[in-house]
């Protein structure tokens, strides 16, 4: 019974998200007072032009990336958990993220090729644009493969197994590449797998933003189908759900979200599996019209807080985002699930 309760919670979360956004911009290796942050965000440029530069060129794009990635990965995880009726499903189960990884590995580990090396040096930021394009291609190809296979299958469980198999295959190919590469190249690749929210700026941020928003709109429109799928595929079909169409829409939006975010930020783990569980606990509902926006807000909030932590306030060290999401998130999920005393939580 959708009442006032979810709306209050959503509004509360939105407020927290706003605060976390400000905090994320304010804290870092250079601490900028909140008052100044406000000033730069909503009024004129600050007196200190360095602060203005840091906020506008580095911190706002990074915080926006955190919001986009948090929304996208959480909603993608929610869709996968409902589609496959499996509490352990996350955006990586379809092999899309592994596809992005393969694309990146191809560029980084084929670095022996002079042309590639040159391109990486020339494009700057360790060739992030080239890497992003490669990751997009890898994710896109796997996504097309998964979509083609999904239209031929009757069963969602088969789809899950095939997705995991595609992921394993892709990772195996990446491993072959790693095996024959120099330690430096492998280290570069390893650093990419730690994930990073920085480095997505300007035009790239616009592209990421558009794809994620498209994926989120599709996910929102699929919420009725997701609700029906909660009763199992047989009931869903008896109520008029077209299972192939539903699978296509859900997998398409989920892959757009996971693929684009992994391509731009690297494989950020944990958010996709944990946030849906946290959100269900928070809203005590299975209604996807509440859970989709709920996951967006919770996911964005979690990733912003993790990003703030990863900059180790007061120091100039930055930890990889993947480390923080798992370190900070895992205890939260364990605590929530223990309170619930039932692992069958999707």
């Amino acid at each position: 019974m959708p009442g006032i309760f979810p709306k209050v919670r959503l509004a509360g979360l939105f407020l927290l998200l706003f605060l976390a956004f400000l905090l994320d911009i304010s804290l870092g290796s250079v601490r900028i007072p909140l008052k100044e942050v406000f000033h730069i965000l909503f009024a004129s440029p600050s007196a200190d032009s360095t602060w203005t530069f840091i906020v506008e060129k580095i911190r706002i794009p990074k915080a926006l990336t955190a919001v986009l990635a948090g929304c996208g990965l959480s909603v993608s995880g929610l869709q996968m958990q409902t589609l496959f009726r499996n509490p352990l499903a996350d955006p990586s189960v379809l092999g899309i993220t592994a596809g992005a990884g393969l694309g990146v590995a191809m560029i980084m580990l084929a670095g022996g090729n002079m042309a590639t090396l040159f391109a990486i040096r020339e494009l700057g930021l360790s060739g992030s644009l080239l890497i992003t394009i490669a990751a997009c291609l890898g994710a896109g190809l796997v996504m097309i493969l998964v979509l083609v296979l999904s239209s031929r299958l009757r069963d969602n469980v088969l789809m899950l197994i095939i997705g995991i198999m595609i992921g394993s295959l892709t990772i195996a190919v990446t491993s072959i590449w790693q095996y024959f590469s120099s330690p430096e190249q492998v280290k570069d690749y390893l650093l990419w797998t730690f994930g990073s929210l920085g480095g997505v700026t300007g035009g790239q941020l616009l592209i990421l933003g558009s794809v994620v928003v498209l994926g989120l709109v599709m996910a929102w429109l699929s919420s009725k189908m997701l609700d029906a799928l909660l009763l199992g595929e047989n009931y869903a079909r008896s109520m008029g759900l077209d299972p192939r169409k539903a699978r296509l829409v859900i997998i398409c939006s989920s892959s757009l979200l996971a693929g684009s975010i992994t391509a731009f930020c690297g494989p950020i783990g944990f958010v996709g599996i944990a946030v849906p569980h946290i959100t269900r606990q928070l809203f005590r509902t299975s209604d996807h019209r509440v859970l989709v926006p709920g996951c967006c807000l919770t996911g964005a909030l979690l990733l912003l807080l993790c990003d703030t932590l990863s900059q180790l306030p007061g120091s100039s060290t930055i930890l990889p985002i993947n480390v923080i999401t798992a370190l900070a998130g895992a205890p939260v999920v364990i605590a929530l699930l223990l309170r619930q005393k039932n692992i069958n939580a999707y």
Partner: protein
Amino acid sequence: MSSPLIQTRGLQTGYQSGDTTTVTTRGPLTLEVRRGQLVCLIGPNGAGKSTLLRTIAGLHPPLKGNVEINGRDIRLHTPIQRARTVSLVLTDRVSTHHLDVYSLVALGRYPWSGWLGGLDSRDKAAIESAIDAAGIRPFLGRKIITLSDGEHQKVMLARALAQDTPLLMLDEPTAHLDLPSRIRLMRLLHRLAGQTGKGVLLSTHELELALQVADEVWLLQDAGVFHHGAPEDLVLTGAFEAAFAHEDIRFDKQTGTFTIEHENRRPVVFSGEGLAAQWTRRALQREGYYIVDSAAPGEPPASIRVLVEERSNLIKWIMEIDNKIQQEFDTIAEILKALRQSFTR
């Protein structure tokens, strides 16, 4: 007479996987369900009841022939059109964690509600009347996983009623229910068919209940043999007996019930009258005795006699063996125990 809600023509059901075809109902079946009719599909485990139901509901493709809804092949309907005609209650248990009863019933409006599943006043009215018809208002606010099997079944029925279809199909709705719930559910379905004019098709193992409420019985026998007709006709033609024929089960045409045939049966001479005698008779049958008339010629002489006597409002059970030992007991349990002991000795 109105046209049938659903009609099968030359239907054969089964599974096709790769090159192997498994036929579950050979057919060809020509069947129909009309408005206001309650049809019970009966058959032993594994006879293909669920497959037939799923095929008729359009969830499973037929091997041969077709199924028609309102005179049009079911495969020509869109999923939504089909869902507006046939609603289904399955044996699947829903175990989603945070799903509450009202939301689940509301999901029944899926084929009618808008893009995002928004409910208008007509949807809400349908949900409310489904809740009342199924009698689930007392546990409306609870989560699905906290429901007992019987409550769960009622909620799934309410969901199907909210779907507001002329045809309602239920796969073994009485499984997992206790006897009063089974009877109440069958009575409810019978009333629904009669009052709202819905066609109801259900599969069940409850022969005795089916005999009392069904307008028509579809009897599925092993090896794909199929009978259909009024339940009483099927009893008289012996189709019932044949469908469940088994060496240790006997169908009693007089009472319409099945009785278990025991091995190593022993004769007993029994006398007594009234309710106590009737239940003693059942107890003896359960223990593997069959009752013989002491005076009947040609019967092997029974060495055991059991008598039930009522003396000044007290019931006494008396056992005699070989006309020698005579003992008196106060309960059926005691006399059965003594009988057992006298034979192991």
